[in-house]
């Protein structure tokens, strides 16, 4: 089992999907139950990864599997090549951890076509896990594209009023970006083959070793970076996100925010930056600028929202700007901060979308103006909501603080100092819009009579939130559990991106000197 642990983990949900096909359509409870059990088993299968200490010392890929897959003579070769390291470790665990929670959130929220929804959830889990563990660019691309299909249907069928527009926009935005990446992947492959490198597939390890000339890197990096920027989403290609988030059902929003957005930032760390180190350095100022614009713009727009869900959606744009800034700082603090913040955002924003779902299920509205004074009738809810709000703002003691602190520290110490100065205002804005929203929803007078008889959270809802709260404090108080297992991989990444670049610039300098003589 442990030999094929990653494969088992990835394809278990798919097996679950097959089981679902034999369950009658009208037996909603059973369908949801099976899905829940499957996602929980998947989580337990993935759990040994969290306790494996090898990640503390080794940056190498662990649990690797390699099976030759498509081979067409000398034309091309693709392999089923998977593995996990400190970079993907926590994202994989985040995925398996969030999925049972997402399933539980559907209990009352999804009542039509339950079979379809559950099947899509399971398909989505396989696709997301596959994308995180793929070590072959072709394989990655397949899982990456596969992810779009279930999300498209989840938004389009179970979404809100503008679901059709949002679903199509989501699909086309993300697909367009990835198609350009596909051409770039093919280009690198054939460029390598033609320059005489023996390529045994599209394995990233192989691609890392290529010394791609700087002028080519620029274009290839742009193709990759564009595709990932859409997914992150970075300003100005973020516009699909508020639509998709607002229209998606709660489970969809949770998965989208907690996991799928991480595909973009993960893509930068895993592919775009180590593959094209020189182009990365060339583009860092521009991308950082976009990241900072995203931070401030997202926060300002969030402040203006009168719909809670939209507010949370725009706050994602802002938070992911932070992640990007940390990654681009390219030092240990920034990178680890960025990685940790990816997990944090998954937990906090995932929780926020669940909270929005809770009140939406009760009142069928998400307008801030419709609420006020809820704390009086829903004390448990208020407490949990408050903790999550603090975590999203980044109050010390919560997970958000550690992440943002590391990111800003990293950015200040790098060449991005001035960007960090502006980004810091984003922290303040975040406090403003979150607290203001919290105050308007939870405090004040209970004006609206419809709110007077609201029930507090049920046991199921509390059970959903507890694991999230645990991690809010765990990461907030003792982030080392998580950081120490990503450090070796982060160091290696830093070396990959900075090291190559430095070697190249030294060579350039030498070359220059020779010319001068």
């Amino acid at each position, binding site marked *: 089992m442990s030999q094929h642990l990653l494969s088992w983990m990835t394809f278990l949900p798919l097996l679950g999907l097959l089981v679902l096909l034999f369950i009658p359509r009208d037996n909603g409870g059973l369908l949801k139950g099976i899905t829940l059990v499957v996602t929980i088993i998947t989580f337990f299968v993935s759990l040994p990864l969290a306790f494996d200490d090898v990640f503390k010392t080794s940056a190498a890929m662990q649990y690797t599997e390699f099976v030759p897959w498509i*081979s067409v*003579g000398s034309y*091309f070769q693709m392999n089923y090549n998977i593995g996990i390291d400190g970079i993907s470790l926590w994202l994989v665990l985040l995925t398996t951890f969030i999925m049972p929670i997402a399933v539980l959130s559907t209990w009352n929220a999804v009542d039509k076509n339950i079979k379809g929804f559950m099947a899509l959830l399971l398909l989505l889990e396989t696709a997301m896990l596959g994308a995180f563990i793929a070590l072959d660019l072709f394989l990655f691309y397949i899982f990456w594209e596969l992810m779009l299909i279930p999300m498209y249907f989840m938004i389009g069928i179970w979404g809100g009023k503008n679901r059709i527009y949002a679903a199509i926009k989501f699909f086309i935005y993300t*697909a*367009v970006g990835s198609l*350009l990446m596909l051409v770039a992947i093919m280009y690198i*492959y054939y460029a390598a083959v033609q320059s005489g490198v023996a390529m045994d597939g599209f394995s990233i390890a192989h691609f890392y070793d290529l010394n791609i000339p700087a002028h080519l890197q620029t274009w290839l990096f742009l193709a990759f970076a564009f595709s990932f920027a859409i997914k992150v989403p970075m300003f100005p290609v973020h516009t699909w996100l508020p639509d998709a988030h607002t229209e998606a059902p709660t489970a969809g929003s949770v998965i989208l925010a907690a996991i799928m957005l991480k595909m973009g930032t993960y893509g930068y760390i895993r592919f775009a930056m180590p593959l094209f180190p020189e182009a990365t350095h060339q583009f860092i100022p521009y991308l950082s600028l976009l990241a900072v614009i995203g931070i401030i713009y997202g926060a300002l727009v969030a402040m203006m929202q009168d719909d809670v869900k939209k507010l949370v959606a725009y706050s994602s744009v802002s938070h992911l700007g932070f992640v990007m800034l940390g990654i681009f700082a390219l030092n240990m603090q920034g990178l680890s901060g960025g990685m940790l913040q990816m997990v944090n955002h998954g937990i906090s924003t995932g929780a926020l979308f669940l909270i929005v779902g809770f009140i939406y299920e009760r009142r069928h509205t998400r307008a801030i103006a419709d609420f006020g004074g809820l704390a009086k009738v829903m004390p448990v809810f208020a407490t949990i909501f408050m903790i999550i709000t603090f975590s999203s703002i980044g109050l010390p003691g919560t997970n958000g603080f550690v992440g943002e602190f590391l990111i800003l520290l990293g950015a200040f110490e790098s060449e991005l100092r001035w960007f960090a100065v502006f980004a810091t205002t984003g922290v303040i804005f975040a406090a403003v819009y979150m607290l203001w929203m919290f105050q308007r929803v939870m405090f004040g007078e209970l004006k609206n009579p419809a709110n007077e008889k609201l029930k507090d959270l049920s046991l199921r809802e509390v059970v959903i939130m507890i694991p999230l709260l645990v991690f809010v404090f765990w990461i907030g108080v003792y982030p080392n559990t998580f950081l120490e297992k990503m450090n070796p991989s982060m160091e290696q990444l830093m070396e990959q991106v900075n090291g190559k670049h430095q070697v190249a610039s030294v060579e350039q300098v030498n070359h220059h000197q020779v010319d001068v003589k």
Partner: protein
Amino acid sequence: MENLVQIAMNNVNFGAIMPALVLSLFGMALLLINVFSPRGKTAHVAWLSMVAIGVTAVVAVNAWNKPFQEITGFAGHVALDNFATFFNIIFLVAAGLTILMSDDYLKREGYPVGEYYPLILLCTAGAMFMASGINLMTIFLGLEVLSVALYVLAGFFRDQAQSNEAGLKYFFLGAFSTGFLLYGIALLYGVTGTTNVAEIGGYLNANPGAYSNLMTVAGMILLSVGFLFKIAIVPFHMWAPDVYQGAPTPITAFMSAGPKAAAFAAFLRVFFLGLGGMQADWTSLLWVLAVLTMFVGNVLAIYQTNLKRMLAYSSVAHAGYALVGMVAANAVGVSGVLFYMLAYTLMNLGAFAVLVLLGKKGEENLTLDGIAGFGYKRPYLGVALTIFLFSLMGIPPTVGFTGKFYIFAGAVKAGYVWLAILGVLNSALSLYYYLRVMVYMYFKEPTEDFSWVKVQVGAVISVLIALAGVLYLGVIPGKVMDLAKMALF
């Protein structure tokens, strides 16, 4: 002249035309059987023609990797090489799936006429002659055999104005295009003194001066017009939407795959073997057409509300993708074309088979509005159509993705990176109209109960076969890709 006939007679080798021969014999036998069958009874003809397809498939596969002497004949007019065999299999898949989805359809539309099936078999035999023709005259004859049967099939519903229009339009324009083709052949014969494809290539290589000869260039262009018309490449695509919409749905499916593949087969062989020396000239012509075809097909498809018409424009666009592989002109690209033809046959015929099941009599419901909520009322068919559409979009893990990957990889390898980029941008464009079908199928409330959608054994089998092919070749394409690679002449 007598000499030629003698040479031909000495060279008779039925092995070289065996699949087409078997198919033609079956076709004629079935025409006879049909005469003695009671009116309105066609099921046995349909199943017998499936037997014909099966037997021919065995014969066709048997020719794979045979030594060249065994598979050439008729004084160098035909060669049943791997290239031809690969295409023969595509034709048989197309014909088989078409026949399977036809029988109940014909009854529903009130045309239980048995001649339909022999016509498909003869048409397929014509396609086989095109693929194995190594002489321009054989290719021309194959094209005519194929076309005549198709003219009849397109206008098969003789009481329906639309179908009549389809048949007539296809006939008139098709006759023009074969005229062009024949003129092109005549000009090339005038220059080189032969109609044998390889000899034309040999002559041109030996006399490089002939390349700049106006007659050669005109011959090349006229020849390509004839082929491009059959493939429905812009600007010779105008007939396609009207004919596709008017023809009986199974025939539309067949036309968009089988004859198109046949024209591609002849096109590839003539242009690479015969006119290979002029490659620089024709690639610059073809890449312009490929780009135009992709854009025109996709953009116009966006505006369609009739599903058959939409698929017609999309099939124009798909021909454009395949042409990209030909422009790449390297082994990856060209074997990519072969693989893509098979891929397209599977996914497109699958989609049409669902439409056949979904259609009411007269088919006025084959519009976007007409399929609102179909995915809920008939979930299995809905999922099948969804998978076919995702495959047409080129989303993994379906054959549409592996096929496009193959073709675009060829283009990238040949240095046509921008052509590959235009290709993928077009795939992005196509997302919109394919997704919209799903929007109507799943995101809209059903307005009808689709009670007329019956489980028809044949059509369901053809959906299942296509589905299996689409998914199998999407996940494990390696073996068939290898075959496509071995099939290059």
